[in-house]
């Protein structure tokens, strides 16, 4: 089979059968791309997981782009990424045409009264899981707590401060601390 077509089909299948995104997808991608298709090695897969941690965007998209590029360069990465997105795009687009209509039905509206509470719980749970994996050092803790407090106040008082500003500020402070510390450490070693 044509490799490009195979890439497209394989990632479309992964895109169609993985729910919730994120790490749930890694197992399926590993199983397909490493074991069955042997497009990348296990080490490469581990590597891309680490890279995905440090780059924005869903890990599934990152994997698709990487595997596509490794197999067929730029065109391959494009095809694999589009394949990954296409199934959910079609499904969500179809839902978006009807959701308003469905919400007018009484029992579905009632169901969503319960569902909206579940969403809050899921987001809280995702944050707790990330907290458990976070380095237990004063600096990350301080950043986390400041961002938590700031974001909560922003939400409660409906202040128009973007969370992107918060992230850039924390990144910048961390960078400055690093740059101030580094020459100091070198000076200390020289004595």
């Amino acid at each position, binding site marked *: 089979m044509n490799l490009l077509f195979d890439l497209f089909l394989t990632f479309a299948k992964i895109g169609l059968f993985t729910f919730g995104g*994120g790490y749930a997808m890694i197992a399926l991608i590993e199983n397909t791309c490493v074991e069955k298709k042997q497009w990348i090695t296990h080490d490469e897969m581990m590597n891309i997981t680490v890279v995905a941690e440090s780059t924005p965007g869903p890990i599934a998209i990152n994997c698709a782009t990487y595997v596509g590029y490794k197999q067929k360069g730029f065109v391959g990465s494009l095809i694999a990424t589009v394949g990954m997105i296409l199934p959910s795009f079609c499904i969500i687009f179809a839902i978006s045409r009807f959701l308003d209509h469905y919400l007018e039905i009484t029992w579905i509206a009632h169901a969503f009264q319960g569902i909206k509470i579940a969403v809050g719980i899921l987001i809280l749970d995702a944050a707790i899981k990330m907290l458990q994996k976070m380095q237990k050092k004063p600096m990350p803790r301080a950043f986390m707590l400041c961002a938590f407090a700031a974001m909560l106040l922003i939400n409660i008082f409906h202040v128009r401060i973007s969370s992107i500003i918060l*992230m850039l500020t924390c990144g910048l402070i961390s960078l400055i601390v690093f740059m101030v510390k580094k020459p100091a450490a070198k000076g200390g070693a020289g004595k």
Partner: protein
Amino acid sequence: MILLELFAGFLKVGCFAFGGAYGAIPLIRDVVLSYGWLDDEMLTYMIAVSEGTPGPIMVNLATYVGSSQAGILGSLVATLAVVLPSFIIILLVTALLKTALKNPYVQAALRGLKPCMIGIILATGVYMIIRNGIVIQGSAMLIRPLILTFVLGAIYFGSRKIRKNGISPILLICLSAVAGIATYGL
């Protein structure tokens, strides 16, 4: 123009969506609420729908918001914009800048950025639980949202004590739908 706004808004989301599946939710809330594309209620519903349908949540939300604002063209533009940054960054990292992520300055910036993201997601979760659970109408607090919050929270976190992985997010959404129908409908 709406298409341009959609593109700019979701490009921003795509650039800063660190932190996995849920990392993009606070950013999308920011963008969607500030442009007034959806209200918080509708966005929350859509997060549940995105969790219950295949594909990454961030991409699903972009498709939905785009479609609700400008039809098929809007959904294409928003989806493209949200994926573009990570696509370009992965290409750059694999093709040209193999050591860029190991650069100590990049690492130092990421060390500040990531915990900040965790704080933001935590605050979003806490805020949503408070807002949906504690509803004041007139001078009385509604009892049903409060009960739902406690029951669903107890089931979800309590199930971990019984089984190692507890119940899955999709199962929680199904349970919450049934609980919603039971509390409000019966």
